[in-house]
């Protein structure tokens, strides 16, 4: 037991836990003043039911003994009983670290359904999604799934490189992005979507939220080394470089297209950069990180306008930011992984096209699985208890109707 590694994982788990309230502010600030509490409650609710889902079956499905390389045994460790009795500090805090990932992943999805969904329906969705979607996918990518299948002893005797997903480009961002898209389609658009401005009601909250996400993301990326070592240090530097440059990428697109660089753009650039570097943070050098950030910022800046053209109300741009930049970062490994830090090289570093193919295939499998299972859960809820509040409540503001509160009271 190396106390330095434990110390860093304790710190990292704490940092990742903070990301979800950071997300609550980021999303809450972007909401209209009449629905900020509901938006934030979706994140807080994810912390509650996400933890419950994790300690009941999620952890087991994710980290338990594998059943045919598909899912971990769901009854492997109900209530984290074994891992906590085991008394191994690294194992215990790793289970906690895993909980924080499950929480933030499902919380991310909520951005696509702002202002219009019953809180109880959301809680049920979040609980089921962690168990049925997040946990199996994390088993494939980080557990015994893909690697075993693709390895020399796997059914295909393939011995292919990768797939690489250091901290969760596929498991977290692509996964949540696809689920957000499906959920937005099932739930439907808000009244006034595409016509009313629906501007963020509190941009300082958005910026603060983005900053807390960045801060917490150090635990997410550098903590995924599970040690205080050179992988962690590399992930730390790449995370900062990609994020900083992604801000520039987003702002330049805005400046050229709209004439103004916005604070919402800067905050969104932060998140796009963080998303894109997540899978790649231990595979590239600082130069690669800068490329990843620049493209992520620019690409997502362009992608967030799509929903108006295509007509899906992904209210706070889960698709444009997490799906698009998550895909980019995952594929970028196949292009610019330098091959010296962590494993195989990408196309431009002499590694050939195979790695790119494996990355794309892994992403595609996760996208397909996430889309189908999310759709099933969403439709089941839609046609039983239903998702939406009444139109009257939506116009008057969901906060008061669902939570009996308004975010701000006049000074009195």
């Amino acid at each position, binding site marked *: 037991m190396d106390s330095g590694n434990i110390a860093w994982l304790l710190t990292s788990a704490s940092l990742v836990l903070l990301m979800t309230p950071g997300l609550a502010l980021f999303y809450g600030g972007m909401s209209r003043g009449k629905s900020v509490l509901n938006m934030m409650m979706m994140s807080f609710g994810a912390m509650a039911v996400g933890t419950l889902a994790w300690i009941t079956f999620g952890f087991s499905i994710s980290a338990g003994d594998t059943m045919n390389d598909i899912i971990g045994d769901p009854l492997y460790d109900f209530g984290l009983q074994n891992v906590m009795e085991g008394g191994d500090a690294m194992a215990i805090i790793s289970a906690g670290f895993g909980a924080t990932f499950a929480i933030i992943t499902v919380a991310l999805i909520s951005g696509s359904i702002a202002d219009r969904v019953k809180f109880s329906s959301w809680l049920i969705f979040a609980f089921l999604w962690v168990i049925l979607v997040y946990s199996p996918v994390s088993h494939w990518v980080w557990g015994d799934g893909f690697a075993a299948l693709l390895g020399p002893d796997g059914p295909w005797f393939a011995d292919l490189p990768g797939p690489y997903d250091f901290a969760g480009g596929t498991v977290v961002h692509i996964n949540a992005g696809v689920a957000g898209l499906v959920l937005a389609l099932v739930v439907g658009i808000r009244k006034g979507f595409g016509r009313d401005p629906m501007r963020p009601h509190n941009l300082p909250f958005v910026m603060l939220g983005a900053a807390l996400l960045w801060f917490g993301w150090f635990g997410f990326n550098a903590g995924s080394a599970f040690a205080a070592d050179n992988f962690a240090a590399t992930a730390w530097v790449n995370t900062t470089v990609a994020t900083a440059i992604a801000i520039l990428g987003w702002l330049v697109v805005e400046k050229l297209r*709209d004439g103004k660089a916005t604070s919402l753009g800067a905050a969104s650039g932060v998140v796009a950069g963080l998303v894109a570097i997540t899978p790649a943070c231990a595979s590239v050098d600082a130069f690669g990180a800068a490329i990843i950030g620049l493209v992520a910022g620019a690409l997502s800046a362009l992608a967030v*306008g799509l929903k108006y053209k295509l007509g899906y109300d992904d209210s706070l*741009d889960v698709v444009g930011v997490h799906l698009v930049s998550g895909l980019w970062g995952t594929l970028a490994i196949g292009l610019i992984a330098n091959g010296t830090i962590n494993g195989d090289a990408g196309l431009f570093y002499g590694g050939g096209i195979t790695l790119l193919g494996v990355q794309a295939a892994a992403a595609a499998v996760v996208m397909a699985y996430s889309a189908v299972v999310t759709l099933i859960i969403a439709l089941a809820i839609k046609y039983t208890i239903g998702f939406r509040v009444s139109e009257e409540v939506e116009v008057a503001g969901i906060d008061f109707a669902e939570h009996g509160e308004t975010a701000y009271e006049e000074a009195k």
Partner: protein
Amino acid sequence: MKLVTAIIQPHRVDEVRAALEAAGVKGVTVSEAAGYGRQKGHTEVYRGAEYTVDLVPKTRMEVLVDDADAAVVTEAIVSAAQTGKIGDGKVWTVPVDDVARVRTGEHGADAL
């Protein structure tokens, strides 16, 4: 007595207040409003969405004056608030039956 109400651009408040003081007006009540008129139909692009903003922030100023002063005060406001751009606002006058000063209970012109 008359009540002169002005809806003006928020950034002209200081100038209007100065003009009112110069015109001998002793008190004003100010509040926030928003309006549209000819100035409507302005389009913004934000985060990939295009939409129309038509309620523009304005400031309301209300002044109670003697009948005789209403015209003068109106002119003072108009010239101080004027920028010549659409959206400069309106000033209107309504008749007032009575005014009371809360502190003293005085009525009529004495209460101004």
